């Protein structure tokens, strides 16, 4: 058996999934937990024995902010909402919240259900490949 280690699910494959409307993650065969977004081994137990799975994309908003001063490159999108959300399968994700008026968002958004998707960020320097941002559409 080879001792080499390769990624089951790279960031590029994860982005491709988002483009097709799929939220890909890894299910660990040792501890049965989910790792999403992906990394080389299980986020819970470090096992390499994981399978690629499609997660259901359902999430709950845990916290948020409205960004009003942005990094260079995002000026055209101001103001915008970013949130941390918990997936039904357990992991959390950081995503751009879509489908809300940033000036009307309050702490009431915490606990709201959202669907995970993806969007292409504005053109940025120091961003190799074809970047994708996770989105959270409030349902």
């Amino acid at each position: 058996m080879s001792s080499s280690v390769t990624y089951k699910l790279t960031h590029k494959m994860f982005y491709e999934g988002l483009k097709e409307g799929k939220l890909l993650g890894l299910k660990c065969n040792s501890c049965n937990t989910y790792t999403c977004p992906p990394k080389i081994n299980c986020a819970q137990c470090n096992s390499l024995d994981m399978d690629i799975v499609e997660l259901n994309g359902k999430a709950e908003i845990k916290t948020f902010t409205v960004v009003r001063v942005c990094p260079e490159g995002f000026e055209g999108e101001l103001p915008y909402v970013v949130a941390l959300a918990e997936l039904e399968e357990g992991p959390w994700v950081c995503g751009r919240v879509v489908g809300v008026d940033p000036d009307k968002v309050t702490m009431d958004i915490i606990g709201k259900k959202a669907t995970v998707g993806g969007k292409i960020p504005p053109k940025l320097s120091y961003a190799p490949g074809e970047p994708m941002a996770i989105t959270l559409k409030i349902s």
Partner: protein
Amino acid sequence: MRKVCVAGVGMTKFGVSEKSCIELFAEAALEAVNASNIKVTDIQSVHFGNVFGDFEEGQAVMGSFAAREIGCPPSTPALRYEGACATASVAIRDAFIAVASGLYDVVLAGGTERCMAMGTPLATRTFAMCTEGKYESYTGITFPGVFAMMTHLYAKKYNIPLAKLKERMAMVAVKNHYHGTMNPLAQFQKEITAASVLKGFMVCDPLQLLDCCPFTDGAAAIVIASEEKAKKMVEKPVYILGAGQGSGAPLFRQKDITVHEARIAASKKAYEMAGVGPKDIDVAEVHDCFTIAEIALMENLGFYDFGTASEAVERGESKIGGKLPLNPSGGLKAKGHPIGATGAAQAYEIVKQLRGECGARQVEGAKIGMTDTLGGDATTVVDIIYGI
């Protein structure tokens, strides 16, 4: 492991500077060397901190250039450290290890930064590079944004009305600006009011302008030596009693971002090594990059139970003269935050506090001091305990 001390310390005025990163560092470094009563050629290794010199000045490999700028010989190794806003503390911890191990007797550690040279849009972008790059940065999240999300989560978790929490956060800003009025090297030396904090423009809801530390230019450096050497160099060597460093996962894997896994691990290590606990700390310079950050760290360092630190702020316990004075220098908030230098500036203040050299902002009778420096999204955290 042998005992290690800080001998001399040096620091530039923080604020806006036309000097280069290396010029700033050289001034702080030679002040530290002179205060140590040694020659620069006595320095055996240079532990140099800088985060964004490449973006600020188009300059890489600054460590070696800085070593030669101050007069070190070709035989002196120089190492550039980068741990986001914790950079200089990473350098100090490594310098401590190098001396504790017996490899070197006298080394220089510190850092430098020219944040202002980038302007706000690029500075905001480069700071955001300290957030995880593949799954978070492309959302457009910023550094204030991360601490803004921490604020909302904190209010929700502990069921504190956001308006009440924001009032207490404003008190952190008011307190640190008050401390800054007594520090001639601080970027801001003017008092502010809670009303002015709550009137500032919104940067990232719910953080307003004065909830945030400024962009800053500046440098700081310290000479670290074996106990034996340091005793010969200065009258009051300050001991490095313990040092810890931790690594945090991306925000989404940390989940509850009011609890900082790397900070808890780093401080636990520092406390254990020093043989002290949170209750033994007399004064601390801590990472108040945002007002909520100071409240959260008070809990993560074990000074207060989780969920209770904002009340302690309201009671004035973190002021000079309070139960545990935090940031007598003015902190990142008023003294300024040249990210590559910040950890060394914290060390500068604690060394001076323990020596009783701080004048109006002196914390009376301080014997054990601590620095706490956070880089990225609590991604790199260093805690160091000093004693006299």
